[in-house]
């Protein structure tokens, strides 16, 4: 299987990062702050949905976003051959 080249890798990293940040913004700000009052007309688990999103749902989704990031980046690393093993990490106090 052809290995991804570095330029593509970096472009893919940035694309996925951007998407994760879009979700982060929607969950943390659009749903939890800008649209909280309209959302409050709905309920989830007995609680107004906007309120629930702001105080519970957003935190849960933030955790899932980082999980998704770690998994996706690991896959990209392997596709581009840039993952490290013990011999290719710089030891501390050595800038490259």
């Amino acid at each position, binding site marked *: 299987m052809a290995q991804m080249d570095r330029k593509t890798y970096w472009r893919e990293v940035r694309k996925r990062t951007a998407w994760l940040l879009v979700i982060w913004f929607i969950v943390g700000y659009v749903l939890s702050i800008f649209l909280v009052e309209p959302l409050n007309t709905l309920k989830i688990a*007995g609680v107004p949905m906007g309120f629930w999103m702001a105080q*519970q749902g957003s935190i*849960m989704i933030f955790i899932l976003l980082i999980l998704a990031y*770690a998994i996706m*980046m690991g896959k990209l690393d392997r596709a581009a051959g840039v993952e*490290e093993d013990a011999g290719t990490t710089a030891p*501390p106090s050595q*800038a*490259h």
Partner: protein
Amino acid sequence: MSIIGWTFFWVAITFSVYIGIAIWSRVKDTAGFYVAGQGIPSVANGAAVAADWMSAASFISMAGLISFMGYDGAVYLMGWTGGYVLLAVLLAPFLRKFGKFTVPDFVGERYYSNTARVVAAIAALFVSFTYVAGQMRGVGVVFSRFLQVDIVWGVIIGMAIVSLYAVLGGMKGITWTQVAQYTVLIIAYLIPAFAIAYTLTGIPLPQLALGKVLPRLDQLQYELLGNFYSQPFKGSWDMLNVFCVTFALMAGTAGLPHVIVRFYTVRRVVDARWSAFWALFFIGLLYLTAPAVAMFARYYILNAFNELGPTGMLDLSWVQNWAQTGLIRTGEWSEGMTAATLLSTIDRDIIVLATPEIANLSAWVVGLVAAGGLAAALSTASGLLLVIGSAMAHDIYGQIINPSAPDHVKLTVARVMIFIGVIIAGLLGIFPPGFVAEVVAFAFGLACSSFFPIIVLGVFWKRCTKEGAIAGMLTGLLFTFTLIVLMRADRVLGLEEPILSSFLGINAQGVGTIGMILNFIVTILVSLRTPPPPKEVQTLVEQIRYPRVLRAEELESA
């Protein structure tokens, strides 16, 4: 056994564990001292980050704050968690690849300038010292409330413990004690939450129990206070401020030196990403429970008022105990007083500490909560002290004043500097400046308006130059600092009233968001007008974007 007895018991056990770890983890070189030899596994590192992050404020004060703010408390819930997403995707893996020891290290190398390094070191010192004053104070307060020890002795005992594991083990000692401290604090926080959830609703899981409590609470609050607990944008917390404060806290999180440096300690870049996940997971266990604790406490208090009235409440033992400490000002109570007056006489900080008592939990639980509060304060203090020690010993002495000193000399300097930092922090804890609470606004505002933009641009934009970064850092710093002082002139300068009440409607906690935007704009504009960074720096930026070291021939072809 009484509450005091149980508190002594738990504190003795947990402190013995910390001392044991201190001795086990002593280090022999600067790599061990500053970055724990980069040998910390991701899950453990995540737990250490969580303990480092959750200070006395998170543990003791946050549920109380939310309890009084209702929906608007989301600024702290989201503000102090959402920043980890920013850290994970914009900073941590790249700084880990960069490798060195501190945040000023990165700033100095990336922006090829000792001036930038020193500016960053001074900013890091300021942010960390102000933050740590509050922690040592918190240690003293818990000792005095629960162990009847004088605040001064409480601070001194705290200083002694921290010195032991920080001086002997540096980052390694600090990290492993933080893992132990996380375990203590999360157990201490969750047990009361589960017990009270079960008592109130028959459902042990607080996150599900709150669904039953909130409707009752909303109803009660409406009857007694005329608004709903779940109603957004109450009082001065309008949508603009909720947005700006949440954003400033999130970006500030990702710019705090003592948080960033925690990702230098793992083995590989991929571990930095996973460590960020574990960190937010462990932090989330507490933060997802805090809203429930806040609601339970609020419900108990309003319900007691509704059913018993002020005279009836004076008979409750928890009211009497806390009235004795002066944190419920029962002297201001009167027969016909309103619920609003009742709430104004209760210090918000007592909510987490008092709720187990209010709910009639056993004394051993209450004692454990005290040990948890100490764990939270000490773990954060030690992380901050490492930044302080390293700023003086590594960024200034080791890199600028005497770079050719042998490693064991640098190690000794590091140990001495951390010890001096502990002494100063202790003094600040014993004689706190009047504006300790304002300090949190300062720390986050400065971190988000000075560090966050230039580190992110440093990784993602090769064209970002030294002049741009220095101009951006100073712009963000000066703007935010000045506005916070103007808006808090009454606490900080001792004036009668603040000089400015808000900036375009934004309060002191949120103005860092504007400072951050200004930093981005200035950095970008100035960078475009100044010569691009030298080739070695552009190569450095290329290297840090990939987990493994790129070989010379790979870099040629770029």
